[in-house]
């Protein structure tokens, strides 16, 4: 029984949720019940009141009807007549007792008397004085009527019950009618549309049919609007698809461009760990199949191990400033004469990722180098380059010098610890040092002397026309001393040193090349003897001979 009840409750809940008809019917039934009950209670009270009033009126009328006879009965103290009257009154259902008294005695008493009536029963007594039929001023007796309110009440209740029942029946019929109307005019067409909409395939061109009876009402409008919505949805889908195709095509193009690009492209995180790259990246870094990076594991620093320090600097520079920076790297294998250079450019993408570009700049580097070679001046320091030195040395070597200053000295200067500076502070740091040294050299020679940087950290000074040899030594020592002073590079104090080899041109059988060789040998001798020294090339000795270095200043 309980189970059945639960199942019914569940079923009812489901119906209420899913069926408008059920919901509407229930709402109407509930409303009719509430309204019906309140109306019924109102009606029953009003019916009861009316009934009561009617009863009272009836009693008054009743009393008026029998009044004359009662007057006579009381006047004559005629108990027979009085009994007659009392019997007559008792015929009324609302009257439960009658008592007629005249001159202090009871003429007639029928039914319950007011005195014997039980308390609690809602009875009431109507007492009417009776006057003489011949003298309205003479009171001859009184008539007491015991009214049975219960009877009146019962009658009224019966009446109100009947009207309540009628109302309930009416409410039930109205509810049923509304339910049927809702089903036929609203639920059924909506369900039909819903089913149709459920089956409709978008982009099949199918549309909802407007129910014939609802063409001009809200349902018709709804269907039209839904159709419009479907149409616009289809339009949007078509546009979307076209856009997607266009996007795919452009993406494929982009991928193709990236794949086929001569430029190496890659993305890495803020630690340098590679995420993606294109074939040109692999090619430019000259990676063997074993060296191929693994996405998310291999870093650029691992791939370019020899340049790891500089790559880290570049990475930090990019991330701290948010700008892109580039770096030229020499990819030539050790001992190779080929010029292989790449340029790595990093563009930060936010704080955690960088996009990189790698270009082969071998050709550019090559042409730079050749251009530099073609020129006589070193671009970095403004000193003569090898070519300039060769040209100018030849000129001063063979030019006759004045008697007083007949000496020609060549100082071969090589920097100590320069490679370390380059490794720590990069090319830029190295370049700063080279320019600093160039400045030192320029300050320590006279006008007319030659200063050159034939390459790397190698400098050559040609002292033209000195009076005695010790002057050359003096200059060399001054230079060594000055170079040894700390140099400031980006707030860091850097100390390098210099080793100097000095050779003097000989009066006979000498050549610029031989002079340079002797100076070079002397410089090596100085280096071997310990850095920061000045060594003189021995006189008239074979170039192979090892000179004795002299101590440098301090």
């Amino acid at each position, binding site marked *: 029984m309980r189970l059945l009840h639960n199942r019914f409750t569940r079923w009812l809940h489901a119906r209420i949720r899913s069926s408008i008809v059920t919901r509407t019917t229930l709402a109407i039934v509930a409303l009719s019940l509430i309204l019906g009950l309140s109306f019924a209670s109102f009606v029953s009270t009003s019916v009861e009141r009316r009934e009561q009033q009617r009863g009272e009126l009836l009693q008054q009328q009743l009393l008026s009807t029998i009044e*004359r*006879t009662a007057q*006579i009965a009381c*006047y*004559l*103290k*005629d108990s*027979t*007549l009085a009994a*007659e009257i009392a019997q007559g009154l008792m015929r009324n259902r609302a009257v439960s007792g009658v008592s007629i008294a005249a001159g202090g005695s009871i003429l007639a008493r029928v039914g319950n008397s007011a005195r014997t009536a039980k308390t609690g029963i809602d009875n009431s007594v109507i007492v009417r004085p009776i006057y003489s*039929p*011949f*003298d309205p001023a003479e009171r001859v007796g009184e008539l007491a009527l015991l009214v049975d309110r219960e009877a009146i009440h019962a009658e009224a209740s019966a009446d109100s019950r009947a009207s309540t029942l009628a109302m309930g029946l009416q409410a039930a019929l109205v509810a049923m009618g509304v339910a049927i109307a809702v089903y036929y005019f609203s639920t059924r067409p909506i369900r039909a549309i819903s089913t149709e909409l459920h089956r409709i395939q978008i982009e099949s061109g199918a549309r909802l049919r407007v129910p014939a009876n609802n063409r001009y009402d809200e349902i018709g409008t709804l269907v039209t609007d839904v159709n419009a919505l479907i149409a616009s949805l289809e339009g949007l889908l078509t546009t979307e698809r076209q856009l997607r195709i266009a996007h795919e095509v452009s993406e494929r193009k982009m991928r193709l461009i990236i794949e086929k690009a001569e430029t190496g492209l890659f993305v890495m995180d803020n630690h340098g760990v590679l995420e993606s790259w294109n074939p040109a990246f692999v090619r430019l870094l000259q990676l063997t199949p074993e060296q191929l990076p693994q996405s998310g594991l291999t870093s650029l620093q691992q791939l370019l191990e020899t340049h790891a320090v500089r790559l880290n600097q570049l990475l930090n520079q990019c991330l701290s400033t948010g700008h892109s920076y580039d770096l030229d790297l020499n990819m030539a294998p050790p001992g190779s004469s080929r010029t292989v250079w790449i340029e790595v450019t990093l563009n930060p993408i936010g704080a955690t990722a960088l996009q990189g570009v790698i270009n082969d700049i071998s050709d550019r580097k090559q042409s730079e180098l050749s251009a530099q070679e073609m020129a006589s001046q070193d671009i970095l320091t403004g000193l003569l380059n090898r070519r300039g030195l060769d040209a100018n040395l030849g000129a001063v070597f063979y030019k006759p010098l004045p008697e007083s200053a007949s000496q020609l000295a060549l100082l071969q200067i090589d920097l100590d610890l320069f490679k370390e500076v380059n490794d720590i502070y990069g090319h830029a740091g190295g370049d700063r040092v080279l320019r600093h040294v160039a400045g030192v050299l320029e300050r320590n020679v006279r006008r007319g002397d030659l200063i050159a940087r034939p390459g790397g950290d190698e400098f050559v000074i040609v002292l033209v026309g000195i009076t005695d040899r010790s002057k050359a030594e003096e200059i060399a020592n001054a230079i060594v001393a000055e170079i040894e002073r700390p140099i400031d590079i980006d707030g860091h104090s850097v100390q390098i040193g210099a080793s100097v080899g000095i050779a003097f041109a000989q009066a006979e059988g000498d050549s610029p090349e031989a002079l340079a060789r002797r100076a070079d040998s002397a410089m090596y001798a100085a280096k071997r003897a310990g850095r920061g020294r000045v060594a003189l090339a021995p006189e008239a000795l074979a170039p192979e001979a090892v000179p004795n270095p002299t101590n440098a200043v301090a």
Partner: protein
Amino acid sequence: MCLFLRVLLILALWSVARADGTQTLVVIVNPSIGVQHLSRREALDIFLGRYRTFPSGASALPIDLDINSNERKQFYLLLAHKDPADMSSYWARLTFSGKISPPFAVADGHMAVDIVANNPNAIAYVDRASVDNRVRIALEITP
């Protein structure tokens, strides 16, 4: 002769009474009953059957006049303010109980006077003109 004269006189008086439309009704009793005076109500109560006795306690026998007589009409009209129809209705109601019946009616005042004169308990109303010394006037009914 005497009878003739008396008849003539009565007729003359009657005609006079008729002519000016005024009669003076009086309630008469037998002098032996000892009733000197009756109020209008006392007289009416006896004639309407409420009391069967005089205020003194002696039994009373009301005598009505003919139902169509002017005196009867006048009497009830003046004392009870009821017309003959009302009075008929009154008595008709009482026929149910059967306890009280309307007073015995006589044809005219003389007959009534005779009855009162001969019956100590009798009481009647008559035109003053009909009264003789055998009866006592207990009440004079003036309009």
